[in-house]
């Protein structure tokens, strides 16, 4: 079994991304001093991390999936569906807030479990399975939520709007989940099994690991995190929107790859996932503050992403030689 647990290489890749971010920040400060003054404020930092929290929570789950060698395209749709179902339960179903949240999370776990069951037990490819469930969950979100469920109760909104040290709850939740994810992946025997499964599922199976159960666990946790992201976002805006997660799955996958994951599995860390999301969010914020035309924003962001991954790939090959 040739599993690559969080190794020196993975750390180097993440540090490389941090270094690149540092270089970009220095260049931004030197080249655009007026924009820098608007960028380098606590209010702007708080705004950036607040707006990355939704994708950050999705990326943490996606990283676990990718470490285990799979990914889940239905996460955005799951987040939308769970958000509107939770909103529907408390607003139109008359459920108390804790019961509605519990109901939403149960649905989230069930959605992930269904994905995991179809992939691990029925043995349908993860790409196809989650592409199918993405359509199903999106449709259900639209059926239940319509144009959105508004005026959610204050006692629910507080979960997304309360502040601590100037940062809103979704940011702290993302940070707490990041720490928990880091601890689990780096320090617990159970979660380290995902690196083995992702590196070589057949070898992992032959060495006695219950690969199917691990896969189902990964999908169920992913569903749970996606649902949590949807619920917390609904609390933040006091509205459950049936389309809030559209396209977020690709953002989460991009951030994970940028933060050290591999499409082949067996690589990645929780803090790498958050670093990937943070890198993209900061780049987007700099371009917005500089008031770059949106067409150029896409080009610049795309070039930086390709550059970051290409440099890492070249360094990796050099190290392997």
């Amino acid at each position, binding site marked *: 079994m040739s599993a690559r647990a969080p190794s020196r290489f993975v750390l180097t890749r993440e540090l490389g991304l941090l270094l690149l971010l540092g270089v970009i920040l220095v260049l931004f400060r030197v080249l655009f001093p007026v924009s820098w003054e608007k960028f380098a404020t606590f209010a702007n930092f708080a*705004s950036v991390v607040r707006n990355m929290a939704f994708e950050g929570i999705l990326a943490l789950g996606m990283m676990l999936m990718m470490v285990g060698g799979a990914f889940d395209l239905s996460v955005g749709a799951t987040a939308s569906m769970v958000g509107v179902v939770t909103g529907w339960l408390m607003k139109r179903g008359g459920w108390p807030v804790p019961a509605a949240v519990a109901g939403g999370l149960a649905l989230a776990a069930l959605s992930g479990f269904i994905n995991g069951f179809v992939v691990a037990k029925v043995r349908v490819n993860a790409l196809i399975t989650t592409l199918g469930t993405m*359509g199903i969950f999106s449709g259900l979100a639209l059926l239940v939520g319509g*144009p959105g469920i*508004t005026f959610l109760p204050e006692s629910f909104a507080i979960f997304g709007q309360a502040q601590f040290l100037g940062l809103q709850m979704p940011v702290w939740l993302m940070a707490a989940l990041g720490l928990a994810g880091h601890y689990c992946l780096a320090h617990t025997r159970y979660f380290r099994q995902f690196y083995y499964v992702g590196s070589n599922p057949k070898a992992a199976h032959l060495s006695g690991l219950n690969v199917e159960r691990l896969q189902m666990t990964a999908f169920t946790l992913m569903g749970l995190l996606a649902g949590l992201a949807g619920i917390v976002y609904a609390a933040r805006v006091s509205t459950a929107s049936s389309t*809030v997660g*559209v396209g977020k799955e690709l953002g989460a996958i991009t951030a994970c790859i940028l933060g050290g994951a591999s499409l082949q599995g067996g690589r990645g860390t929780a803090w790498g996932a958050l670093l990937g999301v943070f890198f993209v969010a900061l780049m987007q914020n700099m371009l917005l503050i500089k008031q770059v035309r949106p067409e150029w924003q896409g080009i610049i962001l795309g070039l930086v992403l390709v550059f970051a991954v290409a440099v890492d790939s070249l360094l990796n090959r050099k190290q392997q030689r």
Partner: protein
Amino acid sequence: MSPLTMNQLARRDLLKLASFGAGAAALGALTGCEQREPAASATTTAASSRAANPNEEYVWLSANANLPLFTTHDHPALRLAGQDLGVKVSIAGPNSVDIPGLVAAVEQTTARKPAGMMVVGWDPSALVPAINAALAAGIPVVCVDADVPASKRLSFIGTDWFELGVRQAEAMVKALAGRKGKVALLGLIEQEIDQKAFAGFRSVAEKAGLTCLEPQQDKGNTAEATRVAAGIIQGASNLVGMAGFDSESGPGMAQAIKEAKQTGQILATCVEAEEPHLRFLKEGVLTACVGQKRELFTYLGVRALFEVNHSPIRFTKNDQAAGVTPIASGYNTGTYTVTRETVDFFLRPG
């Protein structure tokens, strides 16, 4: 052992997919991949007395066909028109922004030879051949909501987006009451209708001494609109207003303004007047919402197509051969502006 990586798609997987996909397709049908409304009983309207055939079918085609805006406004009015005229109406098109999928839906519907088609022009160029082919096959086609002006469609029924931009700017200038500064514009910048709205907004705002920033892309997603608006608020000095031109811009901008504690300092106007928009309007975060009379798109669309088939008015000995139709070449369905004073008329109870 289950294959996990995405490049390991085996034939066995595809066979399993077929059964899995069949189940998904069944559920998809429930959520409206193609919905056919039952033929309504003939009514006593003047139009239905002009020999409406209950098997006559009028099809509405769009990408993102189950968008909440459509299901809340366009689809119910479509059914109502069908009932009024005693004809069948149906809905077709992909449930995502899939332009090739929409083109395929138009072509497949043409092959069925319905009595008329209403096409939402998501793409002003890609839909041209499919619309022209339908017309060449003798099927009347009108564009609704968004136009395909390069096609030979018989009419366009929808909002004048330049005017919509004007309405937003008028509401903002009035609310600013002489304050000068910068105004940010958000929307789907690649859409022709949004570009017209930006132009309409500028035509009024700039005359009033406001400086309009370069329009920014919010991808028609509330979370993205919030992120973009939050960045603009941090970056632009002397920002006094924001105007949003896709359906999700309004709630997204309002959330960013609220979180930046700029309510009342930065005024915001937007298109559409759905529950999430109205909520922010009631809270005072949004200043005005300019709603489209969406129900008229499909209601007038079915009626226009019906007139093409049944109108007693003749302009020539053979109007069809002469290329003359008995309907207007365009219907501006107009807009309405919702403010804090009128918001309660629009909010649904509960």
